[in-house]
């Protein structure tokens, strides 16, 4: 245990250091992992057998190769087509290594492990062009900028965003994941350096934001597959997971660095663990003296809790090693507002410092409290040897992560599903094996510390805004949604699920019909209940966005996949016709509503549904192919041999949507290309950048918030734009770059000093929505 403390001192020192430590993330990790290993040893967790050593080294090497490739890709040093092959290859290498580390009991070869194929396909679908497609405004860039500010401001508790100040609309997990990933991949977080790659190349910080999402998506798919395979069989569970992985919703949201995949991915993993827990005999126990999944769970708990405890403790102590100051300096916590390095720019929030709201509950005391509770939890988990209960604890683990990502739905849906399942099957006793008391403690230990820390610093601000306004308020009322004129009845999400499950929409109907029947399997009934709860929750919520229906996608897609696996078992002809007809009319919407029908897919995850589809983009031919697949699918159902071909079609469709459709639409729904144009010109001139009447968030992220903000609606600081331009000219700067929406260029000209000349530097092909303007003063 002393060794664990010694290793733990490394990340503690990195966090406590007064200045950012170069490669601090990597150094901290190199201390944290051995510290966890030492804790496990102290808990009498057995050492891995020697036979595991070589495959473990091989796996580690493949993981290192994956990391190195990701670093190169994020730095812009790896061409897109190379990363499209190399990263999936390295990921498959990791999988192959893991197969050697954890072989199946029967010794099935790698090629016959369905889970391996699922994750390999996930890599092939998810990694190509993951980071070379620009961020979609506003959400990806919004959360990404909050994560960047965490690093720039050295503050991982009080989330902050540009000219609006404290960021209070989402819980913190996604931003932590993004910020850690940015640190791991060496992304330049400093103001004005975001697009600065290696050797003058254009960086792709999108890799850092989206890789954690890709990994969460893989965890969700795999654990859900494992749970389903336990209740049904591996081939059908694989079909279900593949249908899920190839739905547009999953494809898109696996490539969107927003809170939805962390919620739904971890929720899928929760449900997979619940299936395992509910269908494992209570008498089954882990083999004594051997490594097992419970130990992996301990590692997971320590990885989540320890960094939080260490970070909280360092809010009251700073480590300095400079002339005249050696050692630790104890101090009170301080609440610092303002964008790191940008406080003095027009439109930005001025930098201020203030004491925390609760002086009597400093972070170091909070750390002590969580450390004590964490130790108790670890001991309880360590003592558990019943397999079903370990699965239940894993379910609580993932549900807590889902709640950390987007709020109470992460706990409410699994709990509701399990209660409903117990009520409808009469298996009330199974609830006891789900360990509700320990589970609630685990969830609280994950979720509560950040809320307590923000309360101690800001009083009711985060509680009022995040919990009451954004969580409760969105449930009861309309908040920021953009559905004016739309039918917001239950139909709202039926339509989105029709598009978001395409080409499997008809198949899902067949699967749902099976699940409603008297001969449904336990897994089908479990998914049905989950789907009903998720759909019901998003439907009764006052605030509605298209992507909220994603919550219901995993169970529905699994029903579709399981249905595909059972279609050859005497399908009911009328329903096949119904499914095919439904697919025809869903497909019709993509074509008949020209040209905006093609935008229905991008609207599944973006904000402004009124934004027009660029007339020069044409995706109709591949969409027609997907539509044909959707229509023929139910009709091909009578032939078992058609299933692999149908699935192959689904994979091709998913690859198209993830790599081509997204790449073509991204410039018109985001600002990467426009700000890359600024980055290219910045090398020639140090002229400043202004965001004019723009609040789409990409402008803040891609510039590291190094920009003056005028007319964004939220800020009231600084002089008028004309005054700013006049002052610049007086100080000898005669060029100004402006990023704005294309429709605002004319009014921009009117705000410039007389005699100024404006020149639009980007074209419609760069972005139909946004443009870069050079103003000569």
């Amino acid at each position, binding site marked *: 245990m002393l060794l664990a403390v010694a290793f733990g001192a490394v990340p503690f020192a990195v966090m406590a250091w007064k200045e950012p430590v170069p490669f601090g993330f990597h150094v901290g990790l190199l201390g944290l992992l051995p510290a966890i290993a030492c804790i496990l040893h102290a808990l009498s967790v057995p050492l891995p057998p020697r036979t595991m050593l070589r495959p473990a080294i091989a796996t580690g090497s493949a993981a290192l190769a994956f990391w190195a490739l990701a670093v190169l890709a994020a730095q812009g040093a790896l061409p897109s087509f190379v990363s499209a092959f190399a990263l999936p290859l390295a990921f498959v290498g990791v999988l192959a290594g893991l197969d050697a580390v954890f072989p199946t009991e029967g010794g099935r070869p790698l090629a016959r492990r369905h889970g391996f194929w699922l994750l390999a396909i996930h890599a092939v679908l998810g990694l190509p062009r993951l980071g070379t497609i620009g961020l979609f405004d506003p959400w990806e860039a919004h959360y990404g900028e909050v994560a960047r500010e965490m690093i720039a401001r050295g503050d991982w508790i009080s989330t902050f965003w540009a000219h609006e100040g404290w960021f209070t609309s989402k819980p913190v997990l996604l931003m932590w994941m993004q910020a850690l990933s940015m640190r791991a991949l060496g992304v330049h977080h400093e103001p004005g350096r975001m697009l600065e790659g290696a050797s003058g190349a254009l960086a792709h910080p999108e890799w850092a934001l989206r890789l954690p999402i890709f990994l969460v998506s893989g965890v969700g798919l795999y654990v859900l597959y494992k749970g389903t395979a336990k209740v049904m069989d591996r081939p059908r569970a694989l079909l279900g997971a593949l249908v899920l992985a190839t739905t547009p919703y999953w494809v898109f949201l696996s490539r969107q660095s927003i809170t939805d995949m962390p919620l739904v991915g971890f929720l899928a993993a929760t449900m997979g663990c619940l299936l395992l827990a509910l269908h494992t005999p209570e008498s089954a126990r882990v083999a004594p003296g051997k490594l097992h999944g419970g130990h992996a769970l301990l590692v997971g708990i320590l990885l989540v809790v320890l960094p939080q405890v260490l970070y909280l403790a360092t809010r009251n102590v700073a480590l300095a090693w400079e002339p005249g100051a050696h050692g630790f300096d104890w101090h009170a916590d301080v609440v610092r507002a303002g964008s790191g390095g940008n406080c003095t720019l027009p439109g930005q929030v001025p930098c201020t410092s203030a004491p925390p709201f609760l002086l009597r509950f400093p972070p170091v005391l909070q750390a002590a409290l969580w450390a004590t509770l964490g130790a108790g939890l670890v001991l309880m988990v360590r003592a558990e040897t019943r397999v079903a209960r370990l699965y239940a604890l894993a379910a609580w683990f993932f549900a807590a992560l889902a709640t950390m990502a987007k709020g109470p739905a992460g706990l409410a849906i699994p709990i509701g599903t399990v209660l409903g399942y117990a009520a409808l099957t009469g298996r009330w006793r199974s609830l006891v094996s789900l360990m509700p008391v320990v589970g609630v403690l685990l969830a609280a230990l994950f979720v509560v510390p950040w809320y307590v820390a923000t309360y101690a610093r800001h009083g009711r601000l985060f509680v009022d805004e995040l919990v009451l306004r954004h969580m409760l308020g969105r449930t009861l009322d309309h908040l920021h949604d953009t559905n004016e004129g739309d039918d917001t009845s239950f139909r709202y999400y*039926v339509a989105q699920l029709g598009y978001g499950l395409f080409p499997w929409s008809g198949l899902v109907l067949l699967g749902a*019909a099976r699940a*409603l*029947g008297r001969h449904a399997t336990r897994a089908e*009934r479990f998914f049905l*209940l989950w789907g009903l709860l998720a759909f019901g929750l998003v439907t009764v919520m006052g605030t509605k966005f298209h992507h909220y229906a994603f919550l219901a996608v995993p169970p529905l897609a699994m029903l579709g996949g399981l249905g595909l696996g059972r279609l050859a078992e005497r399908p009911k002809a009328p329903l096949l016709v119904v499914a095919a007809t439904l697919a025809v*009319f869903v497909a019709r919407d993509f074509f*008949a509503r020209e040209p905006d029908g093609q935008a229905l897919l991008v609207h599944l995850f973006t904000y402004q549904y009124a934004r027009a589809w660029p007339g020069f983009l044409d995706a109709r031919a591949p969409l027609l192919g997907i539509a044909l697949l959707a229509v023929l699918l139910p009709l091909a159902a009578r032939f078992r041999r058609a299933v692999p071909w149908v699935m192959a079609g689904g994979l091709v469709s998913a690859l198209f949507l993830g790599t081509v459709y997204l790449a073509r639409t991204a410039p018109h729904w985001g600002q990467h290309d426009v700000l890359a144009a600024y980055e290219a010109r910045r090398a020639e001139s140090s002229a400043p950048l202004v965001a004019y009447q723009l609040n789409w968030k990409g402008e803040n992220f891609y510039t590291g918030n190094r920009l003056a903000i005028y007319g964004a609606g939220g800020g009231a600081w600084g002089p008028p734009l004309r005054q700013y331009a006049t002052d610049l000219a007086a100080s000898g700067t005669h060029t100004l770059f402006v990023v704005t929406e294309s429709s605002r260029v004319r009014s921009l000209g009117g705000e410039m000093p007389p005699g100024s000349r404006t020149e639009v530097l980007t074209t419609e092909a760069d972005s139909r929505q946004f443009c870069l303007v050079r103003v000569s003063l």
Partner: protein
Amino acid sequence: MAPIVKSRPGSPTARAPEPGGVGARLPSGWLDAGTFALCVLLLFGGIGRAGLWESVELDLAEHARTSLDGGAAARAVALGYRLFGVSAAGGRVVLAACVLAGALAIFALSACLEDVATARVAALLFASTPMVFVHARTLRGDALSMGAVAVAFAGLGIAALDERASLGKRVPALLVGVLGLGAGYAAEGPLLGVAAPSAAIGLAWLLGARETRRRGAVFGVVALAMAIAGLGLASRIPTIAAPLPFDHVLAEVAHGCFPWSALLPLALASTSNRPLSRAAWLFATAVFAAQSWLQRGGVLPVAFAVVLATAFTRARSPGPWSRFALAAVVAAAILLAHDFRSLPQKDLAAYGTTLAELPTSAKALADRGYAVAAVLVAAGAVGAAYLARAQRAWLFGATLTAALVLRFGFFASVASVASPKGVFDSYTRLRDPDEPLGLLGIKSTTALYGGAGAATELASSQDAHAWLVGGTTRRFLALRRAELPALNASYRAAFGRNLPVVDATSSDALLAVDHLAPLETSQSPLDALVLDTAPAGLAGGKTTFGDALELLGYDVVDDERAPASLSATKSRHLRVYFRVLRPFGGGHCTFVHLDRSPARFSEEHREWSAYPMSLWRAGDVLVDDYAVRLPPAFRGGGDYPLYVGVGVLPCSDDRRMPITAGANDGNHRAALGKVHVE
């Protein structure tokens, strides 16, 4: 548990109701008679009680009365006029008869292909579906289409799919079916009226067992030929340029057919390859496709009723429903009830037209009716989940009761409230023989249907004012509610008080008079909004805005208008009183801010649609009534500063009417001090 009975159509077990099935314990004849009587009551009961709903019914009524260019529906209504006289009820009776014919056809088809118990369920389900009985009792065209298509589907279905039927039964059935196709063609055209029912039966025959195909060969081929002919004729129909999303048809069924639509999961769970289920699902699919293609609807409830009825037969679906399917029913009932509560336009989805706007006064009735119906369905499903023997009868009974609650509660009232008939009845009751009626925004034909006799149509509020006050005897004026503000302003200019209204029971129309008779009181909705003097005891100080408006103070009342405090959990009304100092022509909004930093409750009233600012005249006292539901941030209560202001349209920035006297917060908001929140 009841024994599992596997039966084939035509076998003796298929004809008799199964133990535990719907209506299993009463003699068959009584049940059939009861079914028929209930269908008649649902479709015809009180058919003339509500007057003509002008925005919904007048078009067809007038087409039928003046010419025959309204198509088959107008000819049907005209027939009603000829038989029963020109009245709303006379036209509706024929439409209701068409729907009754449809119900009988569905009964016959279900009895032939499945069993009599299923037939009773199908007929009752059809007749008690809101979208069906509403159209049967409203002068719209869909009732004729429903009846025609149901007859076509049933006739062709018996001819082609009834394995037991002899040629002597099949041929007349085919003839009836063809008759239905003809009527369907006239009512809905070749795609929906001909191709949809024929294709469904033709395909159901084609996908049937070999024996079925052999016996019904000629008739199946005829159905397919009819379908092809219908499709051929339909190919001339131009494609819709901007079709609605694929799911809009689903919404029609879900909201328009509630409470039965909540049982759709059971229909999905009970799908089978048996003839009735096969034909019903294919029919539903064909109608869905045709309606999606044509972007108009009204026929889907026919297919829906048959599809749903197949879920209730024990002969076809042995064993109890899955509890998970019943849980889906509960979920559907809850979600649909939520839609009805939160989206008022869904309350009248059964009318299938946006012309039917829910009268504000009927919203509470709608909420109550739909909530009771949802609870009944949910209770039926929960009960059915724990009943082994009579679960079908239990759920059917609960849902039928829910449908009856809606039929004889909300739907019976809404047509009466929406129709101006009450206004005409009041006029007839209150007038002396020589006192005339004027109309503003209401057509004289509506008065004719309403029994008010001849009336003078007036073109504008100025004309109406001049006419109303220009007589020597008392004059009555029936007017649309939307016309009241302008007319009231003219009246106030002339007499310094609000225009008297003697009937405000209709949601859309009012009956005004030039002066009240002794013992009469005015029911004008503007009496709560435009006052002559402000009440005493208002809170807050006086403030003057731009020398045009004087803020007199405010009070807080609850929903029953009793004095109260603002509440973080209950709805309240904050009423701000303004006196007009000089007319200023509008272009402004009024707003309130209640600050609880960083949250704020804010509300604004743009242009005042209830009494537009352009009508305000010096001396008027206006009541600015804000419905206050405070956001969760106010939980815990306290005292918070209240501000009132007058913004400049579009009220999206800080431009405001300046405060020239009184407490100004620096941003031209009147600072009214702190208000207590419980």
